[in-house]
């Protein structure tokens, strides 16, 4: 039986580990709090306004030496050359952002060389006036009128392996995932889906696995505010009948 996944997302601003709120660096992390043995996957994202690609790659190298779960790397990836470097430095998958809207050939280039399974495509959305949902691009700066399902399907046809549904309005809120919307969307997408944005306690992760078809719950902030370890989170999920690796 394929297990549900808990993915830890780490965001770096100019080489320093930060958490984010509404897509902006908000709070600096200092201690070494990540239990690399209990998580299912690690996602490392560069959120710096001015990217220093080389510096960021050194962080990837560092993590990959001691991490024996899959590592996804993303944040402003623009071309196949950067993708090559990410893989050489220890990435197992790359996370593509709104560059894929601007440069639709990027996905097929990467998939031909590294396979579909090596690409997670981020779809950044925002809830507007409590009713409609809009796709955002340029690191959440610009709203578009693109249909979310159509966009996901076009990504799948071009060759992405997984889709990350990234709730910008909920980023850093700790209020829980947008279950209603994610339930509707995850049902219609033909590849595995991941959700990011809103998790504030273990119950939120339980809910998303119980109520939607989301395969993996991503979270960054939760580990910063709770004393609980990831292992205890997974035991909690397992006790509540979620198929998860403990």
């Amino acid at each position: 039986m394929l297990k549900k996944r808990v993915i830890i997302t780490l965001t770096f601003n100019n080489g320093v580990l930060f958490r984010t709120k509404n897509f902006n660096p908000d709070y600096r992390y200092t201690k070494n709090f990540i239990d690399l043995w209990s998580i299912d996957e690690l996602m490392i994202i560069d959120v710096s306004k001015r990217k220093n690609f080389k510096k960021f790659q050194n962080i990837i190298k560092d993590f990959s030496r001691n991490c024996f779960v899959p590592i996804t790397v993303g944040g402003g990836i623009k071309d196949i050359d950067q993708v090559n470097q990410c893989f050489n430095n220890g990435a197992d998958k790359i996370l593509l952002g709104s560059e894929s809207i601007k440069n639709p050939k990027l996905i097929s280039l990467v998939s031909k060389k590294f396979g579909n399974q090596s690409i997670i495509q981020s779809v950044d959305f925002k809830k507007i006036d409590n009713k409609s949902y809009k796709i955002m691009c340029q690191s959440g700066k610009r709203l578009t009128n693109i249909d979310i399902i159509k966009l996901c399907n076009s990504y799948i046809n071009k060759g992405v392996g997984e889709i990350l549904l990234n709730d910008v309005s909920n980023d850093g809120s700790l209020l829980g995932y947008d279950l209603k919307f994610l339930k509707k969307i995850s049902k219609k997408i033909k590849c595995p889906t991941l959700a990011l944005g809103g998790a504030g306690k273990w119950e939120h992760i339980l809910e998303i696995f119980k109520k939607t078809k989301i395969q993996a719950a991503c979270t960054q902030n939760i580990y910063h505010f709770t004393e609980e370890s990831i292992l205890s989170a997974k035991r909690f999920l397992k006790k509540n009948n979620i198929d998860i690796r403990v």
Partner: protein
Amino acid sequence: MKIGLIDLNTGNMGSLVSAMKKLNVDVKICKSKEDMIGIKKLILPGVGAFKDFMKKIKTKNVDKEIKKLSMENVSILGVCLGFQILFDQSMEHGFTQGLSMVTGKVDSLTTINKKLKIPHVGWNSCKYDKKNPLFDGISDYSDFYFTHSYCVKEHDKKIRIAITEYDGSNFTSAIASKNVYGVQFHPEKSQFNGLRLLKNFSELSQC
């Protein structure tokens, strides 16, 4: 004794190298036929697509050398795509011939059940079909990390050592055919279980 790691510039070698380092096993990166001289054990990693990978392996004549070494009783472990290319053929991006070291073929997971969501990605368990030293010290139904859309089919049932269930359908997740071993999952990304499997492979006695 050094273990050779075939590197054709197709994907992330770093994680396998880190895993072997953690286990204190010496590795030699093999980029050409010449690099493989004197190798007693070989790991064939693979990230990428079948067609592209076979093309690269052939241009460097590494394919013939792998086959030659297998005849000389060198233990070989294929990982993910490196496992799939051990077979006769694949349908990924159109028909492509494999190394034919093991009889069987590779096709999309959706040919077992068209309703399966691909890629099959995440942690899934291996149920043993036969006892094999590759899984020594790892309990039945242990979880490993998978990420693939294709699987091996139509092979001799005798070589299957583990199967994995995905959404109600079973596929072969590990094989052993004399000195040739293969796993569909990524041991280098499967925490303790994966590291143990790599250790087991490095400690296998030559047959």
